[in-house]
């Protein structure tokens, strides 16, 4: 680019930066009032960030992480409608955790994973259970887990939002799934849509950066004059700062999303260049970007594999699960391998969840219905046990037997690993101190390493 461009950049930065603008005052104001500033956790944290992978529609536990089949001696207790795992299953060689054959890559990394097989869902219907898994409430609007974490811990990189949701499609429950509700709006999830323009307004509609620089210089100096006559208003200062951040974000965000910078072996690991289509086709990109965002200090990253349809809701034909698994299995496993090899898995929680399981009995010809009495989720990294299975279900995969886990327990435990006491992370709203876990939640000590 032109020489002018080169020297204009630093000028803009210094105009907006705290060094020239009301030295001292601005940075003090910003430090005190900035709702996004990084905060101390309640106690020493095992993990600094979360990658939450959400599989939409209700993944069949029997056909994924809690296989039951006649091969393994399960007989269905004489119920002729019982249908065991139709894909077959095998154990991870090291830890022995059994996984369905449609998740071969994830099976290979099971020794890094802690599976919970005894989850109980908060509702039997998609939207409610999806909201329950995200907000702790199946009915009324409440802040999302990511918003709570952002509110509790703030962010270490203000050039990117603290809670980002990479979702090619909207899940059940719509935008409520990542809403901040009564928490300050800066803690709401920012949706990222795979493609040319992942975040709204990241790119200028027509102008070159040169013109934008000129404009920001003008409004910056006008704003500076305005603020200097109102030196006690931290909000004005914060807004001036926000333009600086936005300016940086235009660089930082596309850079974070630009997976072409990754070396060939990493792209291959995630399966980025596979020819896949259908629901979940973007998932390799989502997983790789998640790792890049995690590296850049984003506190809570959520990946939603498919939208409200088509997805894992295999009422008519459970074989649909195979195609869906094919799109997500390799990238998900790659994410764990990649985090591990970078030394990031220790302080990153990877949480994989869905809204409920599917019935062990046949629905229709060859499908499965919604099942709330038991289902599986899993966790990796973040101080959780690896190669571990928590809780059991009965022989046919219908009810939990040992260590039943409620959604609130899962939330409480995830917060705990982030150094947050779920009973102390509260927000006063409408006369009550609200929390993610409402009046419930117990820490699952058994799954913590």
């Amino acid at each position: 680019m032109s020489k002018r461009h080169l020297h204009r950049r630093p000028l803009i930065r210094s105009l907006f930066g705290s060094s020239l603008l009301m030295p001292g005052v601005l940075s003090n104001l910003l430090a005190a009032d900035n709702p996004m500033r990084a905060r101390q956790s309640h106690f020493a944290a095992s993990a600094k960030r979360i990658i939450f992978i959400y599989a939409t529609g209700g993944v069949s536990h029997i056909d994924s992480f809690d296989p039951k089949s006649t091969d393994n001696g399960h007989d269905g207790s004489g119920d002729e409608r019982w249908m065991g795992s139709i894909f077959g299953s095998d154990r991870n060689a090291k830890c022995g955790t059994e996984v369905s054959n449609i998740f071969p890559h994830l099976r290979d990394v099971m020794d890094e994973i802690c599976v919970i097989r005894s989850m109980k869902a908060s509702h039997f219907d998609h939207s409610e259970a999806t909201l329950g898994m995200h907000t702790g409430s199946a009915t009324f609007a409440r802040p999302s887990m990511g918003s709570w974490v952002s509110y509790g811990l703030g962010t270490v990189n203000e050039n990117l939002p603290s809670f980002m949701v990479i979702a090619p499609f909207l899940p059940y429950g719509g935008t409520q799934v990542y809403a901040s509700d009564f928490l300050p709006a800066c803690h709401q999830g920012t949706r990222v849509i795979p493609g040319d323009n992942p975040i709204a307004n990241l790119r200028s509609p027509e102008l070159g950066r040169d013109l934008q620089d000129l404009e920001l210089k003008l409004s910056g100096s006008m704003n500076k004059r305005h603020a200097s006559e109102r030196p006690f208003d931290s909000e004005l200062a914060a807004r001036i700062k926000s333009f600086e951040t936005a300016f940086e974000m235009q660089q930082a965000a596309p850079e974070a999303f630009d997976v072409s910078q990754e070396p060939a072996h990493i792209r291959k690991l995630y399966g980025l260049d596979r020819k896949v289509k259908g629901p979940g086709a973007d998932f390799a990109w989502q997983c790789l970007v998640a790792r890049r965002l995690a590296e850049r200090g984003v506190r809570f990253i959520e990946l939603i594999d498919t939208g409200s349809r088509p997805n894992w809701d295999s009422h008519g034909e459970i074989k649909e699960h195979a195609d869906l698994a094919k799109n997500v299995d390799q990238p998900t496993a790659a994410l764990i391998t990649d985090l591990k090899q970078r030394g990031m898995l220790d302080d990153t929680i990877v949480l994989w969840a869905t809204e409920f399981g599917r019935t062990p009995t046949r629905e229709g010809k060859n499908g499965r219905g919604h099942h709330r009495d038991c289902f599986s989720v899993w966790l990796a990294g973040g101080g959780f046990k690896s190669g571990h299975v928590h809780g059991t279900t009965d022989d046919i995969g219908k009810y939990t037997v040992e260590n039943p886990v409620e959604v609130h327990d899962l939330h409480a435990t995830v917060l705990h690993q982030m150094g947050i006491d779920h009973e102390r992370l509260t927000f006063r709203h409408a006369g009550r101190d609200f929390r993610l876990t409402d009046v419930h939640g117990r820490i699952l000590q058994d799954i913590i390493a």
Partner: protein
Amino acid sequence: MKKIAPTFATMVAILLLSLAKFAIASEPVDFSNDIQPIFAKRCIECHGPEEQNGGMRLDQKRTVFSEADSGHRAIVANNVEESELVKRVQSSDPDNQMPPEGERLTTKQLDLLERWIAGGALWPDKAIDTANHSDATSTHWSFLPIESPNPPVVRDIEWSWNEIDRFLQSKREASGLIASDDSDLRALIRRATYDLTGLPPTPDEVSEFLIEAQTAIGKKEAIEKLVDRLLSQVNYGERWGRHWMDWVRYADTSGDNSDYPIPEAYLYRNYIIDAFNADLPYDRFLIEQIAGDLLPSESLAQKNRQTIATGYLAMARRFGSLVERYPWHLTIEDTIDNLGKTVLGLTLACARCHDHKFDPISTRDYYGIYGIFASTQYPMPGLELFKAQRDFVPLIPSDEVADVMQPFQKEIDKLETELETLLAKCETQAIEDAAVSSEATIAEQRKRRKDLDTMMLKARKAGEKLAEALKKAPAIPTAYAVQDGRIQDARIQIKGEPDRPGAAVPRKFPDVLGAFALPEDVEASSSGRLQLANWIASGKNPLTARVIVNRVWQRHFGVGLVASTSDFGLRGELPSHPELLDWLANDFMQNGWSIKHLHRRLMTSRTYQLSSRDSKANIAIDPTNRLYWKFNRLRLDAESIRDTLLVLGDSLDPNPMTEPHPFPEKANWDFTQHYPFKDDYASQKRSVYMMTKRLTAKVYFQTFDGPDPNVCTSDRDQSVTPLQALYFVNDAFLHDQANLFADRVTEGSASDQQRLNYAFDHILCRIPTDEESQMMLDHLKNVREQLVESKHVELEIERQAWSSLTRSLLRLNEFLYLD
């Protein structure tokens, strides 16, 4: 298998107990020595002064023998079998057993309890009762009658313009605060115009106001005139109607998991806007929204208007997707929750599952109101497995409805009866199943569940048939409104679960607000909504006037006299100026509950027109401005920003929207939770008229702290985020409007300076200083050079240069904030 063991153990215990009874039956039981210690140790924590779970407490004689929420009596003297307490302490069902946790009572304790009851449950009067919980809470300030205090004496008599000022000035003086200077007149007209209309003043309006205030009629009168003019504009209702829409969580969709559209919702929206413009007295406004259908009317037009008003109740959120398990109790909860917060400043819905932990609202109070709405017929907007509208209220005379519907009515009636019969059966069965679930074996439970599933499936099929029939019937004009339904008192739902009905509660108003009951003739013939509406809108109700006066204050001044505008309960904030709040509430009621009168009062105070400038001395004393020594700088809200951009681009369609949104044909509705309704409709009208969905919020409104259409949005956040900055830098709509404005700038005037003045005048309500002009001219020069360098054609260069300047001005805090 699991269940049998404890039951067996209990049986053994009972057997032993009976044997013991024979042996020691004659020994007397002493209440203070034998019984009270058991209560104190094992029961009082949850059934005492702190909590009265299940509407029952064991620490005072006065209430211990009365009916609990479950509909049973804990203790029936001389009757062990009827005493629920005995059943519960013997039960091993986790849902029923008492105490719910810890060791079971000992055999000896059980024996003492039984013998005490069998012997007449003597409770000596001298036994000490614990202090009464509700007495303490009903002395809370907001439950006391509204006083009529006189404005206090102030030292600086000159300063105040009206009574409001004197209340505020008195507190400032006491705290050593000196009010800021008066605001600059341009800032003032900008503030007042956005405040009442959500739009910027035109340059002509600004200059006229300046002339009047500075010369012609003087400042005070100029402000009065300004306020009157703004209140008379249609824009006023669009602005303040939007505030009401925030509080009543207005939306154009129903919020169930498929988010069914409600094409008729706009009628209620327009009712709100018209009501504000007509200055409908607030008490009347409330009564119409709660019970407009039950009010007398002189014409069809009036009847329809009042019917449409009940759209407020119809607007309650819908949940679920199944007609056979439709959770009406959640929709009613949402109704009560909003009515409580928005109108009464009370979190009533907390009492759905248990007595309110903090406020004096019992579960009985909750179900007393619940019965009124359970007796109300809500319209059904359609749902995944019932894809048609039902029970909307016709807006044409009933004989015309009958004529149009005649060929279809018989079939619909038949199918409706079928469905209702099946639903009633399901309900009875579900309650019975829940009741026996603790006793039944797993096999029995399984069979019951299967039977119920079969029945429910039948009901669903019947629903689908009815929905199909309804879809075939011709469309008649209807409103999304309510009417009286099957009249009934509600039964308490134990722990909020509808399958576990407890005691029936007569419809009533909460104890702390007067405990009014329905007159006998009304009780049998009406839901009681009109009575409820009258109780709420009564001048004797200590909350209603205070709450609305405070809400209006909050939208004018940024922070309410009670900062928690939706919570006047014990956990809410205390008022900063309780006397002023009462004075305003009184003045409001005495002036016919006129909202416009209230605006005039507030806006013609000197405090309203204070400058927003800080003073170091004041900040040291009152950093958050709780004593209103300056005007709180306010950020333009989402609607004001968008509407202003449309005004600048000269692309605003100023006409009200009097037609429904262009939703798809009802006959084609096939929304499911997999494929929910999620259309958007472009519009050049004011933002208040944009179609609002409950499930999928618009990114723009999320970015700029728009209202949450699922709950009462008490006030708008003023967040500062980089995403907002990105909007101002890159948004396509903003760029379009800036281009259009640039065309206006360049068309009208010749010189750069004239153009600059024009741009400043329209965006910032002032002309630039010389220094600023120079900065702007430099900018234009730089931009032009740059554009020439990148080979733009000349005409395009001028447009781009001015568009660039416009965008820069739109990024100014001076634009975005009201000083």
